[in-house]
């Protein structure tokens, strides 16, 4: 059944729990009071108390009904894929491969033209010219590669976030379904046991540190970004362990609803745990980029701050 019916299921659960508990009271009173023909009055008098007991059941599901729609991430992920295409240097080996999920991006031919500018500026000499070469042309391939890596890290983090919401939806839906089944099944001869697997706990895979390209010698060596990805999209070796499964059981509505509360609590914890993995990776990546900006953005040329007041030619005359 589908997530869209979650609140309907929640209301059903609340209603069924109340009715089943009233039934239980009916049986108890019927047993205790032999010869009492009108059970309904004493049973109905217990209704307000029982309704209060289960009053919050429906509302427990409300926050989950308001979780973000996983497909709302599709647009921005698709945009980042385009960004990766633009930034792909596409050289042999790993240059054009998404470091998180291994997707190959064909080379963007426009990027290859930067190296070719050298021959066009042979006649240009002076500090600006040599700075252009050393600060822009030479580091260009490495900077592009590092931008590619950061874009890929962002994209994968979004995919991981989307996976959390996808799995959380499936999990809360299953919790509701299982509780409804349990409320039906508790009257059958078998012992009422069921297992819940919290798939949300296996949403986010941690990726081995992705090394940044050192390129020109001014860049720091041995730096790597921490990436996370959606478990369903990374190589099997990087995938997280199997999610935890918990067995629940209950022969009365009270116990079943208690198990339901346990399961919901566990789901909350699972979501928070997985979100923390993404937040952690993002914070680390953010500090790294902050501390080594020159590996990701070439230096601003001095001329860009120039105006007639501060530009002098080789003879010292202003122009």
């Amino acid at each position, binding site marked *: 059944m589908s997530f869209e019916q979650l609140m309907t299921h929640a209301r059903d659960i609340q209603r069924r729990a109340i009715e089943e508990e009233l039934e239980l009271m009916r049986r108890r009173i019927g047993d205790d009071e032999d010869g009492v023909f009108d059970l309904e009055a004493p049973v109905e008098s217990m209704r307000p108390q029982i309704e209060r007991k289960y009053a919050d059941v429906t509302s427990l599901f409300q926050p989950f009904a308001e979780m973000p729609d996983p497909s709302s991430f599709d647009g921005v992920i698709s945009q980042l894929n385009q960004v990766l295409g633009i930034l792909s240097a596409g050289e042999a080996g790993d240059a054009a491969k998404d470091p998180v999920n291994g997707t190959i991006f064909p080379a963007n031919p426009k990027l290859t033209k930067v190296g070719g500018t050298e021959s066009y500026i042979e006649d240009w000499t002076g500090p600006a010219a040599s700075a252009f070469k050393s600060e822009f042309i030479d580091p260009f391939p490495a900077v592009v590669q590092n931008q590619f890596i950061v874009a890929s890290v962002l994209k994968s983090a979004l995919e991981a976030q989307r996976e959390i919401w996808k799995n959380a939806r499936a999990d809360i839906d*299953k919790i509701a379904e299982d509780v409804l089944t349990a409320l039906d*099944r508790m*009257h059958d001869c078998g012992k009422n*046991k*069921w297992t819940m697997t919290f798939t949300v706990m296996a949403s986010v895979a941690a990726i081995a540190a992705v090394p940044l390209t050192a390129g020109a010698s001014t860049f720091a060596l041995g730096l790597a970004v921490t990436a996370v990805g959606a478990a369903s999209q990374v190589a099997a070796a990087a995938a997280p362990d199997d999610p935890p499964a918990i067995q629940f059981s209950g022969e*009365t509505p009270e116990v079943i609803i208690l198990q339901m509360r346990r399961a919901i609590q566990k789901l909350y914890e699972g979501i928070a745990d997985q979100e923390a993995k993404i937040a952690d990776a993002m914070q680390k990546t953010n500090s790294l980029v902050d501390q080594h900006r020159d590996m990701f953005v070439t230096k601003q040329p001095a001329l860009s701050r120039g105006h007639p007041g501060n530009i002098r030619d080789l003879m010292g005359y202003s122009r």
Partner: protein
Amino acid sequence: MSVLAERLENMRVRVHVPGAGLEGELRGRTGVRISFEPGTYEFRTERDLERHLASLARLLWAGRMKEYYAALSEALGEQISGESPPISLRDQEYDGARDALVAEGRSADGRIYVSVRGMRDWTVRIAENTVRTLREDQFVAAVGEAAAALIQDQFAKIRRLKDEIYA
């Protein structure tokens, strides 16, 4: 209604008793309907019928449990084909009591009586001269009544047992 309840309500189990010219069908939770090979009813004896109906009950119950676990597997999204052994003291107590539980049912006219212990040991008693007294369709209806009564008795007793042990 949960997926499980819906499947159980629509359940259909059909069995036949080898060599007895007898078939039976269970519909939903309590709907039992037997059928004889045409033209054979009048020649049967009460004792034969008792034996054959007991066999039919066993086969219907086995068929029913198979369907039940299939429905449960679908409802819970995992393969379940039986019960795990009891671990807690309460579970052990429940299993023991359930195995000893006797359920019974009678047709409205009292001619047919069925009982079962632990859903395993079946007993059918048919009053003398029933075959001569009841037409085939009346006999079939009477078996249906007795079976439905037994099934309801079993459910009621299981519920009491669970209330006693778990509530």
